[in-house]
């Protein structure tokens, strides 16, 4: 009797698995990807910033295309492992890649991968401006006071890590303002940097705005400046834009990080066209707008040539910033990457 029970239980499990497994095999018809679902390999861990920025847009694109897009996470070497992996597969349009524009721009100078934006067609739904933050009870009240304090006092400056968006942005700002680099304290992620600012572990911090916006809304942290081209309203507070406060900083907002989905340039044109369509449609959807709003992200919607132009500019910004702060393995000069001041799209686009 007991033995019978055991077999019935096993049988039940088998039947359930077969039922769940069966329907996938049956559904085959006119598809953009007839051979099976395409895979997007996200270069960072599940639940990270890139992962959370990419998934909503992919889900909407899935909806438009009426097909499943699988998302897998392949963490490692600032997404270079995933990039190399996708490049090692056939360029048949079944394999896509997702990362941040910052890491992608840094691959070659960091010596992690030979890949650059030239290898990819990309779609960038959002960008994430960064903000300079202090605690609500800090004596520093304005951007200028902050610059002076960093110059004169020995402050601990919180960032998520070296060579990523906020660090590159703040270094660009320091260069323009003529302020020397402060004592950086890395926190691992922007959220951690914001929390350690709130806990009083650091004096001032630069974080992607999305990871600290709720602290600002709650009045626990104060944003002194945000790296957008326009002032940024949060509830009743209007946060000044860097371009109003600092002369010569017009290009800084263009360094804000994006989280693109990428596909090999050699991929079939019909798939790229269809993905363009899906991308444009997805950006119009209320869920995406709402997501961007709650996370304080800007919808930019770069694709096609605009995306290439953006990535080329960001490559110039990031690789030189990495090199100048002593983090890069190789000089950007060796790859013919121009400095930001010399960057000219007309020259760059003929790669």
């Amino acid at each position, binding site marked *: 009797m007991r033995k019978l029970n055991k077999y019935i239980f096993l049988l039940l499990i088998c039947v359930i698995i077969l039922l769940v497994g069966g329907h996938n095999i049956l559904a085959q018809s006119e598809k953009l990807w007839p051979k099976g679902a395409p895979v997007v390999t996200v270069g960072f861990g599940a639940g990270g910033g890139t992962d959370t920025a990419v998934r909503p847009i992919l889900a909407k694109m899935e909806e438009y295309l009426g097909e499943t897009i*699988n998302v897998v996470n392949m963490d490692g070497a600032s997404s270079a492992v995933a990039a190399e992996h996708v490049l090692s597969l056939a360029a048949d349009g079944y394999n896509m890649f997702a990362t941040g524009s910052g890491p992608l721009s840094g691959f070659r100078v960091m010596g992690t991968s030979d890949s650059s934006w030239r290898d990819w067609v990309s779609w960038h739904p959002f960008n994430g401006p960064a903000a300079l933050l202090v605690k609500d009870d800090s004596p520093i009240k304005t951007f200028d006071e902050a610059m002076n304090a960093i110059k004169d006092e020995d402050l601990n400056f919180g960032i998520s890590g070296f060579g990523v968006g906020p660090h590159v942005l703040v270094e660009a700002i320091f260069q323009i303002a003529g302020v020397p680099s402060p004592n950086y304290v890395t926190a691992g992620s922007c959220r951690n940097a914001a929390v350690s600012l709130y806990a009083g572990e650091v004096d001032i911090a630069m974080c992607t705005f999305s990871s600290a916006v709720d602290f600002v809304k709650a009045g626990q942290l104060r944003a002194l400046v945000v790296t957008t081209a326009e002032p940024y309203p949060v509830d009743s507070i209007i946060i000044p834009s860097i371009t109003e406060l600092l002369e010569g900083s017009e290009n800084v907002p263009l360094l804000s990080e994006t989280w693109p989905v990428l596909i090999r340039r050699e991929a079939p044109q019909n798939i790229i066209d269809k993905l363009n369509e899906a991308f444009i449609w997805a950006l119009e959807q209320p869920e995406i707008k709402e997501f961007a709003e709650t996370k304080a992200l800007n919808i930019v919607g770069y694709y096609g040539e605009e995306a290439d132009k953006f990535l080329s500019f960001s490559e110039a910004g990031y690789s030189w910033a990495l090199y100048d702060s002593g983090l890069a393995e190789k000089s950007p000069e060796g790859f013919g990457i121009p400095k930001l001041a010399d960057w000219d799209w007309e020259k760059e686009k003929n790669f």
Partner: protein
Amino acid sequence: MGKMDKMAAADLIMGLFLIVFGGIAIRTSLNMKVYKTFLDAPGFFPFILGIIFIFLGSVMTFSSFRRKGFEQIKQSIKNFQIIYLFSNIKFKRVMILIALMVIYIFIFIDRLNFIIATALYLFFTLYYLKSANIIKIIFISIITSYLISAFFTSFFRIPLP
């Protein structure tokens, strides 16, 4: 030869290994790039770990010396115990099992469909272990490998190797 004695010998080898390993870790970490100060450089923590390894290794070496580890090693070399190891049945079984795993992981999975690779592996391993009669073995290997892959591809939507 009690079991304890063998451990003393193994501990001695491990202790010495740890000291060498710690030394290598320290050397490598001192060669790592220093960006600002050594205190936040990539090599800092491995450096500390190297010191800890040397310390723990010394403790083990010392303890094992006291437990006559060195004499044990000398004795085993004298008695050709290493040859005994290779004629040991347990050792042979483990080697064959590992060989089957190597074939599965390094050869089958790369070249064959996951279901087929798994079914083959299960068949040979179960056959070697004489787990059941041959019909049952064939049945088990095919059914399990199919069920495992169906479960993962359809429920979790992950691609199989």
